[in-house]
């Protein structure tokens, strides 16, 4: 798109108080790199350890959720000819006054949308103590593989670290898919 104006886009981001934005492929090593970058940014902002770690934690859990749930994939051909199938997603962070906001967006299947909606709705009914208790139950449960059920604890962790409820929206994206956008404040 030749008529895309970077300056206009940049102005729009500052108006919306957005300080970090990423849109593109998401893969595990990429999350590590972005996490390092985010950590540096948080160090510069000179936050309390709890706030800084809460933001970092929400970032990591949301990225892992996107790795797991994103239904939009891109195939990248690596140099050694091993094709890598990567999830696609979007990550936005900003600061308005003293409040940080983190938003993510990615395409999910209708099935995942149903699971996510049910989980988030339940988490939004719990207060901080309830979330701590619920997290603890999952932490103790017998299924060994934390990733097997997909994002169970990750979403609870996000809810625990947020000062707001988890806001979300599902927008139909053709047959069988929805665009999942999610937003929390810290």
């Amino acid at each position, binding site marked *: 798109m030749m008529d895309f104006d970077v300056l206009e886009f940049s102005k729009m981001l500052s108006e919306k108080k957005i300080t970090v934005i990423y849109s593109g492929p998401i893969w595990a090593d990429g999350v590590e790199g972005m996490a390092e970058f985010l950590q540096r940014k948080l160090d510069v902002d000179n936050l309390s350890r709890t706030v800084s770690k809460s933001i970092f934690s929400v970032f990591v859990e949301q990225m892992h959720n996107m790795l797991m749930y994103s239904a939009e994939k891109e195939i990248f051909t690596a140099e050694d000819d091993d094709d890598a199938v990567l999830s696609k997603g979007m990550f936005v962070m900003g600061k308005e006054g003293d409040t940080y906001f983190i938003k993510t967006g990615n395409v999910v299947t209708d099935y995942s949308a149903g699971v996510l909606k049910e989980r988030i709705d339940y988490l939004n009914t719990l207060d901080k103590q309830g979330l701590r208790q619920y997290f603890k139950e999952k932490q*103790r449960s017998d299924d060994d593989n934390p990733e097997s059920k997909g994002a169970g604890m990750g979403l609870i962790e996000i809810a625990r670290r947020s000062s707001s409820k988890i806001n979300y929206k599902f927008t139909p994206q053709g047959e069988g898919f929805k665009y999942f956008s999610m937003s929390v404040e810290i």
Partner: protein
Amino acid sequence: MSFYMEKQKTGSTPYILIDESKGYMKMSGKSFPEKALDFFGEVITWLDGYLATDFGEFLFDFAMEYHNSSTLKVITNMLMKMDECAVSGNKITVNWIVAEDDEIMIESGEDIQEDVHNLTFNVVVVDE
């Protein structure tokens, strides 16, 4: 031959030291691998074998700066197994080492402390 393993930390995985001859394990750094169970697989396999022996005394220093939720799940499973085995002559001490202003890690240590009965679980607060 007793088991020895030392893994350097990366941006998303922790430093791990296991020195079986000294009955010692240590973890530090950050941990948020994509698949926590796979990453800790070798440690879990060793620990399962070790806990089945008459090991005598075992010390685990957990000085992690940050762990994601699936890492915590894997670590909790290890601690629960340790708790079951800290009986009849086998003594296990876990030091959950945290910075004094790190409310999140202190809380997560306290939540584990409530659920272990046989091993000695210390939340060690350090001034950084």
